[in-house]
């Protein structure tokens, strides 16, 4: 079995607080792996350790056979691991189309390319790609609006489009449907299912169990910085340990 991401023995402390303790996690290629857990369990910290925003105190994050720890965020991106953030990280002053063209440019130009005399108006190919990505998430109508002016749900979808256009081999999604109406959530689930058919590996952090159980092939449960269970949706659904961790928490928070 080939693992695209192999996290071994990752520890991270903030001051005296153990945010992550000896995390072991393997993600199979082509699967959708959900990570669930109560608030403050360390889910976002784990993702941050993967993409270079945080450096773990110890452990390795192996991606496609290479250790990502200590690498610059932009290099990790080009290695093929892309993250979609929980609070939408977009370019509010740019139009939706430009927001999506930027990651497309990153894919094409690499970490740095000095091309001040190339005309943006002639980049029709990138534009078409970007429009297609916007169409994927249903935002093509608003392509010339400023990203800062659209709704929060739309921002999430815009960011999803920004992640998708880079066609990463591993997409890390931090609560992709948070803040969306039920109708939009379903559309996003459909979209994510469609990507799965394209063979992209995904890691999803999610609270909404409806989303988790509709999408995930495997689920890991994180509580107080430790992974307490990993298994198929059915196994997790029936695990007593998991129920205990979730006691008192409403499922669709």
């Amino acid at each position, binding site marked *: 079995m080939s693992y695209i991401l192999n996290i071994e023995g990752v520890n991270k402390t903030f001051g005296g607080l153990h945010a992550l303790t000896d995390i072991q996690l393997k993600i199979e290629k082509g699967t959708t792996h959900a990570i669930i857990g109560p608030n403050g369990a360390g889910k976002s910290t784990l993702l941050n350790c993967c*993409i270079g*925003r945080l450096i773990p105190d110890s452990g390795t994050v192996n991606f496609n056979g290479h250790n990502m720890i200590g690498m*610059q*965020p*932009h290099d990790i*991106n*080009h290695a093929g691991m*892309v*993250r979609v*953030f929980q609070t939408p*990280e*977009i*370019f*509010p*002053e*740019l139009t939706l*189309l*430009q927001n999506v*063209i*930027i*990651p497309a*440019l*990153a*894919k094409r*130009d*690499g*970490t*740095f*390319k*000095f*091309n*001040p*005399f*190339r*005309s*943006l*108006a002639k*980049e*029709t190919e990138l*534009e*078409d790609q970007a*429009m297609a990505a916007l169409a994927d998430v249903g935002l093509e109508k*608003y*392509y*010339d*609006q*400023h990203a800062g*002016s*659209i*709704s929060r749900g*739309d921002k999430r979808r815009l960011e999803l489009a*920004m992640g998708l256009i*880079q066609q990463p081999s591993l997409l890390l999604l931090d609560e992709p449907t948070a803040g969306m109406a039920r109708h939009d959530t379903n559309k996003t689930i459909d979209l994510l299912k469609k990507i799965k058919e394209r063979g992209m590996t995904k890691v999803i952090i999610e609270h909404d169990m409806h989303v988790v159980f509709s999408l995930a092939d495997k689920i890991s449960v994180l509580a107080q910085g430790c992974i307490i269970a990993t298994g198929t949706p059915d196994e997790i659904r029936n695990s007593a340990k998991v129920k205990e961790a979730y006691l008192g928490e409403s499922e669709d928070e």
Partner: protein
Amino acid sequence: MMKISLQNNAVVMLIFSAVVLTAPLWLAPIGADYPDLLQKFAIFGIFAIGFNILFGLTGYLSFGHAAFLGIGSYTAVWSFKLFTMNVLPAVILGTIMAGVFALAIGYISLRRSGIYFSILTLAFAQMSYSLAYSVLTPITNGETGLQLTMNDARVIDSLFGVEAEAGLPSTNLFGQVMSGYSGFYFCAVILIIGFYVSLKIFRSPFGLKLTAIKSNQTRMKYTGFNTRPYLLSAFVISGMYAGLAGALMSITDPLAGAERMQWTASGEVVLMTILGGVGTLIGPLLGVGIIKYFENIFSAMNPSALHEIFNFLPLWLENIVVGITRHFVGDGWHLTLGAMFMLVVIFLPGGVMEGITKLFNYIKKKLGLNRVDSEDHVSEGGDRK
């Protein structure tokens, strides 16, 4: 699909060139059509355009760009002294030298962002100024400023048998003397080229990436961009524009002084850019026009000149008007400038450019043009918030 570029570059350039080259004509009614001021408009225009590439696109506020202006000036004068009075080597060397310094200073300063970056650039510029003013006098001629002298080497000129004559030689472009109106046209042509380059940058993928860095630098990193080289390129480009402007200052007037590098000079270009409209193509040029006009024309008005201006009024009213306005011109011209900064930034946060845009929209609305169009835009943006 014409989604990104709304305007045709050729049309923009045509209009721009026409406006710049006919400046002596349309500036005549406001008394700004004499060569020195025209040259200053063009030169500071280049400076501000370049500064806008850094500040307008990336949002990095440098408080030290006057250092590059000064370096360009000194290099140009040294080129006149050592090599030739022809201006081309001066222009090229001035620009390159400023670029080299910008690379070094930018490399260090860009390790920090925000106000820390501003203070780093300020510190470098102030050090350059202090040293140029005193310790480096052998190179800069200190407070007096670096000037041409009779016994300068001028290796290339003497090689070609250009004979020294009475008085100091003039800067020239293959024989055409670079003072007066010819100097202005030389600067104007370079301004047009500089504007074209800036237009290309604004409308290139590179420019888009710089804007994105300003909008959200963190996101750029996670999108796969190494932002530091982008910032450094923008810094060096704007530094070279400053060096070019500095070289042109020496070309139209071969004297380079240290005060060109002082923080107030850096502050001036910041103010010009903000006043005109940061990040817009034309805004910085408007800012240059306004500030230089105030500095040169308003500072020279005295009560008798005011009486001439207002003599169409009845005498008693004329006296009152002159009595009030005299505090805002002549030695009070700074007051007008300060008050204008405040008024513009309070009522037009996007600078003069925003005022012009608003005015255009208002006129359009009044005329009933594009009415549906523009309203549609606003409401849609607002609703979806």
